């Protein structure tokens, strides 16, 4: 998978993906119109739809994840209604976004009431990931191996119910 293809640079990256048969990550700034439009433009260049992955740009827990959820929900509902330009898998850069939230890195000394940093950081990333999973994320890019374990358990639990 290569990227990141955005509205103003997609042509060269899409061409590279096409020539070397890679899958392309198409990123839109939390905007369903641009998301769909970018997929259309890339597809028009000749890249098959099954070679595109949507990166809707996510946010960490507490920093607009509700809006992320609503945009992803709209994309998934579109896909379920047979909208081919929104039917790609969704990739979410959860690790990067969650770990730049203050709650995920501020020290115990700075905020004694927030609980132990080690647990807090893991939980912040894991809960962000679980949120986007609920609304149809297919690929999670994560940072903390301990958070990965929590999310894997969450996925296993979802499938066992």
């Amino acid at each position, binding site marked *: 998978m290569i990227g990141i293809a955005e509205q103003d640079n997609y042509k060269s990256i899409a061409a590279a993906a096409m020539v070397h048969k890679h899958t392309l990550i198409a990123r839109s700034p939390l905007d*369903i*119109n641009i998301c*769909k*439009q970018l997929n*259309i433009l890339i597809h028009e260049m000749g890249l098959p739809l099954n070679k595109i992955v949507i990166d809707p740009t996510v946010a960490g827990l507490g920093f607009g994840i509700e809006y992320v959820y609503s945009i992803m929900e*709209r994309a998934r509902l*579109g896909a379920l*209604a047979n*909208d081919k*330009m929104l039917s790609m898998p969704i990739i979410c850069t959860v690790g990067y976004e969650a770990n730049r939230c203050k709650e995920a890195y501020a020290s115990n000394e700075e905020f004694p009431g927030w609980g132990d940093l080690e647990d807090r950081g893991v939980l912040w990333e894991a809960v962000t990931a679980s949120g986007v999973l609920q609304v149809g994320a297919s690929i999670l890019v994560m940072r903390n191996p301990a958070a990965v374990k929590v999310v894997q358990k969450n996925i296993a639990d979802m499938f066992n119910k």
Partner: protein
Amino acid sequence: MLIFGERINGMFTDIGDALRNKDPKAIQYWAVKQQEGGAHYLDVNSGPAIPTEERVAAYEWMVNVIQEVSELPLVLDSTNYNAIEAGLKVCKRPAIINSCPAEQAKIERVFPMAIQYNAGIIGLTMDKKGIPKDAENRVAFAMELVAAADEYGLAMEDLFIDPLILPVNVAQEHAPEVLESLRQVKMLANPAPRTVLGLSNVSQKSPDRNLINRTYLAMAIASGLDAAIMDANDDDLVDVAATAQILLNRSVYADSYLKVFRAR
């Protein structure tokens, strides 16, 4: 919103000539051209071009030559049910039978045939006495067709109710009644039957045909229209259908939505 391309009809001189001369060129030309315009189905009507006794064979020939050049499913449009059956036998994809009025004898002929060939039906809200003036009686006929679908086991989404629009220059009072019928037909069953109109009829012999077609299409879609037998090569008309999909929030907006609507 489904577009049924209307152009392959023996009433048009080039199609009539094609049928008489057994020359598939014009028929195949319009099959491809309508598909390019945005048609999802192709309506196939042999019209009055050939003698009654030759119609079954001619109809089968039409279906075959269309399928040589187009992958689109067909709407088999004829008053001759033997011709339709001949067409159904050679259709490669599930077709739609056009049409069946709310008359018991015709229901008994058409509905079992639809089930046998996995086809849909366009059901007309009329009987032997003709087309009702008001919405109420149109809906009553629609109910009979819905009941027939239930009885014969035809899926509601395979029943297309046509509340029959008449030319606005001579039968203006029908236009709002048809819109009201569309709204009410959608409440007859759950899931609801689908709806269709022979759109171009609304503008017969009016000078501003395209404008009337476009305006009525937008109004009808907002009232519950799911499909129209229409001019698939009037780009502005197809654009209206595409834009209505967006404004009713049925498909996700993108700047290129007009292009996407036509994409296959």
